[in-house]
């Protein structure tokens, strides 16, 4: 059993790696680097300053991993040290440093060129595709520990872990010397257990949400900041203040100002804001989860009833619905449903009308997202039930003298657990795919809406991060489905499975 689970975990991780690597290759090789500036807001403003324009472009490409970029000044700082007077000397027009820059960087494989106005030199080197992919993985996993912060201005920084209570009064494992103050804590928001020790770094967002780590964009709150009153003790004094800082995201801040001193005892004063709207991840998760439950609950019920009333009116309506859903484009039935929801039920057909705080906003997107899943589940379970009702063992059970109801509940329904479990991963994947369409359609601020816009904005890091998340969720669903099946199907007991492979 354990062996099988370990093997499946390994397979799942491998699958995630394969998909993300493919995505990395695709994004890096297929997105022409000139296009990444399409959504850039700075570039047009500096279009008439060729030197700045040049510099900005190369810097951006370097940030995105396309090239390595080195200016004359940077190289001088590297050679002489950052604060050396020689650095400004090296930039003087008749300095021999020009020649040195040319020879040294050419030797390193860089292409050296001069800025059009100032004539300062800069060097660029394309990063090979493979290297780019490698670098992405190299910085992917970041582990926080008490020796992470090395601040020369703060030699007395304490290092180590300690237990503490957060503002909400909850118990937390905190640390000093780490990047994040709070390492592990528990609260009432999903998944209830949180940590900052291992964090994924998938690069920074650009050009939209410029400079913010993409995972923060995806998992950080949205909308207005939410202020609340905090009562706590700082250096033994009772204090109370209004703030919108999310204390669990507090990071090491080298220099503290007076305001910080009033709120915090230590250097951990740099936090994200709590906001009134949930994150993209949270929004998509809420809608996706409810929609999945709806698909399963309604789809399975309808499918079972249709099978029991095969060829009768209920069954015919169900089949008509399934055919309708599967034959017309998704966008079309969502649009039709949205019109119905708006005109007849008076629900908002755009999420932002009432916003994330109003439950009415969620109704149409959630139901729209489950329309396809309901059809899929109903078709699947109906076919299974019809098949089972004609199975030999059902006839034999009837000939044993069991009643229709006994056969149905003691045999068929119990057996249906297996196809139901089998169908869950597909339902999850279908929901993910559907989210792309529904969220865009209803302007839901979630990952599903973010994904197509990341593509049209050439936000490479975002595309890769979202693909990664979708892949992980899909593969997790398949993995859990496989594990669950071994519990409901005695024929695939884990031991037997282990032997069979």
């Amino acid at each position: 059993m354990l062996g099988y689970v370990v093997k499946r975990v390994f397979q799942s991780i491998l699958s995630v790696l394969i998909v993300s690597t493919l995505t990395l290759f695709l994004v890096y090789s297929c997105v022409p680097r000139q296009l990444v500036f399409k959504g850039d807001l700075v570039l047009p403003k500096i279009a008439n300053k060729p030197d700045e324009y040049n510099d900005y472009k190369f810097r951006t490409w370097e940030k995105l991993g396309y090239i390595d970029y080195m200016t004359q000044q940077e190289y001088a700082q590297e050679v002489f040290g950052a604060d050396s007077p020689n650095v400004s000397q090296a930039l003087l027009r008749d300095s021999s440093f020009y020649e040195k820059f040319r020879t040294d960087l050419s030797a390193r494989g860089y292409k050296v060129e001069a800025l059009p106005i100032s004539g300062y030199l800069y060097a660029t080197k394309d990063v090979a595709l493979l290297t780019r992919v490698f670098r992405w993985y190299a910085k992917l996993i970041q582990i926080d520990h008490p020796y992470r912060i090395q601040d020369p201005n703060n030699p007395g920084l304490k290092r180590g872990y300690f237990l503490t209570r957060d503002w909400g009064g909850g118990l937390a494992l905190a640390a000093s010397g780490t990047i994040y103050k709070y390492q592990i804590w528990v609260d009432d928001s999903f998944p209830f257990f949180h940590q900052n020790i291992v964090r994924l770094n998938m690069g920074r967002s650009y050009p939209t949400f410029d400079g913010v780590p993409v995972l923060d964009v995806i998992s950080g709150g949205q909308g207005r900041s939410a202020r609340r009153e905090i009562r706590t003790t700082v250096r033994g004094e009772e204090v109370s203040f209004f703030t919108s800082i999310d204390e669990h995201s507090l990071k090491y801040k080298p220099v503290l100002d007076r305001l910080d001193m009033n709120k915090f005892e230590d250097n951990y004063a740099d936090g994200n804001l709590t906001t009134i709207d949930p994150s993209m991840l949270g929004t998509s998760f809420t809608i996706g989860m409810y929609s999945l439950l709806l698909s399963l609950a309604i789809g399975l019920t309808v499918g079972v009833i249709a099978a029991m009333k095969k060829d009768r009116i209920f069954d015919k309506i169900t089949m008509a619905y399934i055919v309708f859903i599967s034959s017309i484009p998704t966008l079309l039935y969502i649009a039709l449903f949205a019109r119905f929801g708006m005109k007849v039920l008076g629900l908002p057909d755009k999420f932002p009308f009432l916003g994330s705080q109003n439950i009415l906003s969620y109704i149409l997107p959630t139901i729209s997202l489950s329309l396809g899943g309901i059809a899929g589940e109903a078709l699947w379970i109906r076919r299974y039930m019809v098949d089972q009702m004609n199975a030999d063992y059902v006839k034999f059970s009837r000939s044993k003298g069991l009643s229709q109801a006994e056969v149905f509940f003691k045999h068929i329904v119990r057996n249906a657990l297996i196809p139901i479990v089998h169908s869950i991963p597909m339902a999850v994947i279908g929901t993910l795919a559907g989210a792309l369409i529904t969220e865009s359609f209803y302007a839901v601020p979630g990952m599903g809406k973010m994904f197509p816009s990341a593509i049209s904005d050439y936000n490479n890091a975002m595309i890769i991060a979202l693909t990664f998340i979708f892949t992980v969720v899909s593969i997790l669903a398949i993995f859990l489905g496989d594990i669950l099946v071994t519990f409901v199907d005695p024929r695939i007991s884990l031991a037997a499975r282990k032997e069979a492979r």
Partner: protein
Amino acid sequence: MDQNKGILKVRDLVVKFRVRRRELTAIRSVSLDLYEGETLAIVGESGSGKTVLTKTFTGMLESNGRIAAGSIEFEGRNLLELKTDKEWEKIRGVKIATVFQDPMTSLNPLKRIGIQITEVIEKHQKLPPEEARRIALTLMEKVGIKDVEKRFYDYPFQYSGGMRQRIVIAIALACKPRILICDEPTTALDVTIQAQILDLIRSLQRDYGFTTIYITHDLGVVANVADRVAVMYSGQIVEYGSVREIFYDPRHPYTWALISSLPTLARKGEPLYAIPGTPPTLFNEIKGDAFAPRNRYALGIDFEEEPPFFKVSESHYAKTWLLDPRAPFADPPHAVKLMRKKGNIYAEGGAAEAGK
């Protein structure tokens, strides 16, 4: 054996099925007597209506089927007057049990073997689970399962085909039925297992004293198990008699054809006999004798009028015009003559044919 004590009496049974707005007649006026304690074999090529006929005894016809006419008398009442499933459930599995063809699919693949046995016992005998389990274990031993305590909790996939059929038989016998219908119980099994299952049924029959209806399309099996044989063709019984009578003195050309196709009777170097043509479609009214188009002995009248049963002996009847005194002589095929010789009751035809 007490040949006179009838247990089941079928009279003029007609079964029709609705298939896409058309109606087919699967059983065309069948009458049949079953005697206490005997084994009756019903033979006939597939599609002849053997299964449909016996399904009517337990009210198990598919929903598109109906009994258009006739009666089935059992324990002093006409079974066809049973209306609700509840009434039928007092017959099915309790008085009349069935073993189906394919043991691989007759059991629920996802329920423990033991539970599939005890659920019948608990339902019909209203016994507590512990008691039911005890009976089930005894039954499992009786049908030849070893290590029953452990095997009780196994799933069907942990049993071989032969073992599963033993379990199916155990389930069928769980409530000590009076009639056991075995619908081609060994067709899906390989030959050595077939013999074991046949033996098992025979020995259980001795112990439990039930009456067996044994359905097969394999005459070879019939000789092994049956006391009497009924030959079915196109929804009718065309000949019936004791095993000896059917094997050694068959009268109906269809029975002749069946016997001719027995591999053991084939002449060396000659291709195995196969009955030419296919059975008639059951959708249309059949005029004359159903077998006539495939029958090389067919007479003019066969295409016009259905033959009645002619009595051959007290227990032997055949439904063919050839037995009419006015009919010309028909020379039976070689295999049949061979059988007649074997049976040493080569009565009719005169000496002239003997040498041929």
